[in-house]
């Protein structure tokens, strides 16, 4: 027989005292025998010992069969009329290591795959219709002797080209984008704030927004507000000098 740990005994004692205090003189049998095992169970054990080994199932039948005979409660019934007793509640953490909390999950099929399928269809449809309506540009064949004015880089590099008008090429074309890219990579390691809640990361959110807006504004200026000679223009005054 395993020994009952000290703290469990203590806890049981406390619970017993509490129950006794609550119900007052409701537990005379316990007070008498200094045991929480009801008298009828003790009787049953004694009877079983006398009658030798009896299969549990047989005994359960016997209990049911003899229930009406004893009048009132069935023989095996506990204080509340229950036929089972709760011996102890073993929390899962005490006998096995719990590594992760249970997560609310759904099946990938159909819940995720259906969404993905619809998204890909919508994307294809959009691209199809857009390609139907708008033709990709194809200007005159490449001619080394005729430089178009203005000459513009692809739109995602127009922010850099815009910077070229303000700084030395090494700063605008290499240093600044290089720093931007390295900062982007290091962001994951420099940001030590463990929370991902927007209200906890106002600084990082603002920093990123400023960073993104900086490039977005530069790209928009480079795309739409630069005309011949890469000079500043207004698209509504001089037209748009931009090809996708």
């Amino acid at each position, binding site marked *: 027989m395993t020994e009952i740990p000290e703290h469990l005994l203590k806890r049981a004692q406390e619970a017993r005292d509490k129950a006794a205090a609550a119900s007052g003189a409701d537990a005379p049998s316990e007070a008498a025998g200094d045991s929480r095992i009801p008298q009828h169970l003790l009787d049953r054990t004694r009877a079983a010992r006398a009658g030798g080994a009896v299969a549990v199932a047989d005994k359960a039948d016997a209990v049911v069969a003899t229930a009406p005979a004893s009048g009132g409660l069935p023989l095996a019934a506990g204080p509340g009329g229950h036929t089972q007793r709760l011996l102890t509640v073993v929390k899962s953490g005490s006998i096995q290591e719990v590594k992760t909390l249970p*997560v*609310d*999950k*759904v*099946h*990938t*099929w*159909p*819940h*995720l*795959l259906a*969404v*993905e399928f619809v*998204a*890909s269809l919508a*994307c*294809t449809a959009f691209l199809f219709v*857009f*390609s*139907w309506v*708008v*033709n*990709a*540009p*194809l*200007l*005159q*064949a*490449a*001619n*080394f002797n005729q*430089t*178009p004015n203005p*000459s*513009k*880089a*692809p*739109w*995602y*590099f127009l922010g*850099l*080209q815009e910077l*070229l008008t303000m700084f030395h*090429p*090494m700063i605008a*074309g*290499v240093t600044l984008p290089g720093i931007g890219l390295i900062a*982007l*990579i290091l*962001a*994951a*390691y420099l*940001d030590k*704030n463990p929370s*991902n*809640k*927007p209200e906890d990361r106002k600084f990082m959110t603002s920093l*990123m927004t400023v960073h993104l807006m900086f490039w977005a504004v530069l790209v928009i200026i480079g795309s739409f507000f630069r005309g011949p000679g890469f000079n500043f223009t207004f698209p509504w005054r001089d037209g748009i000098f931009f*090809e*996708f």
Partner: protein
Amino acid sequence: MAKVIDSPRPTLKERAAKLGQATLGSQAWTSIFRPGSIFRKGYTDSPRNRSYVIMNSVLYHLHPVKVKRHAVKVSYTLCLGGLSFFLFILLTVTGIFLMFFYRPTATNAWEDIQTLQTSVTFGLMVRNMHRWGAHLMVLTVFLHMSRVFYHGAYKPPREFNWVIGVVLLTLTLLLSFTGYLLPWDQLALWAVTVGTNMMGYSPVIGSQVRFVLLGGVEIGSETLLRWYVLHVLLFPFIIVIFMAVHFWRVRKDGGISGPL
């Protein structure tokens, strides 16, 4: 003696149904679609089969059997990562089509595109889809990065996947930029001239890098061939490897981040 026909001739519909059942039950069919497949005979919607659809198919390389409930919400991811991948596939398909009609030489390139647009069935359409799809992919990759940042999804244990993501963004830009030259029109030539001039300003190795990329000191036929190979072979090869690691890490790092 006349034979008594005790059953009416089967109708066409019944024959078709029988043939369908026979096909679904055939060895060839069941060898293609593994147990649990929705295309198998007698598929029923049960939790067990829902698991099998993923577990017993090639999709298991991409998705786990179950995902977090909030991961399915379109409002969380806006499908941006998935759409970037989907656009990559779309660009591969349309790109292969374009390769049939294109020769990367200074004398042929522009005319090939012109011919493609005017004489090839669906040529203009496919080229349009390739070009707009490429711009859209740059946009979705960029938006995906912003989404991930604003959700704080780069935080441990996902730091390294964020780094891979930045590499993927760079590769996407490089793919788009190398493709920009291929039509060999005025737009392509001078946009790339501007772009590569910028590259030449890199300290120490700038002019060497520019020389290697252009295949000379100026843009010419060699540049076109180099960028063509970079565009259709080298960069797609590299980006596929990085994408594989990216998707694998998403699962290894515990699925997508959140909920907030």
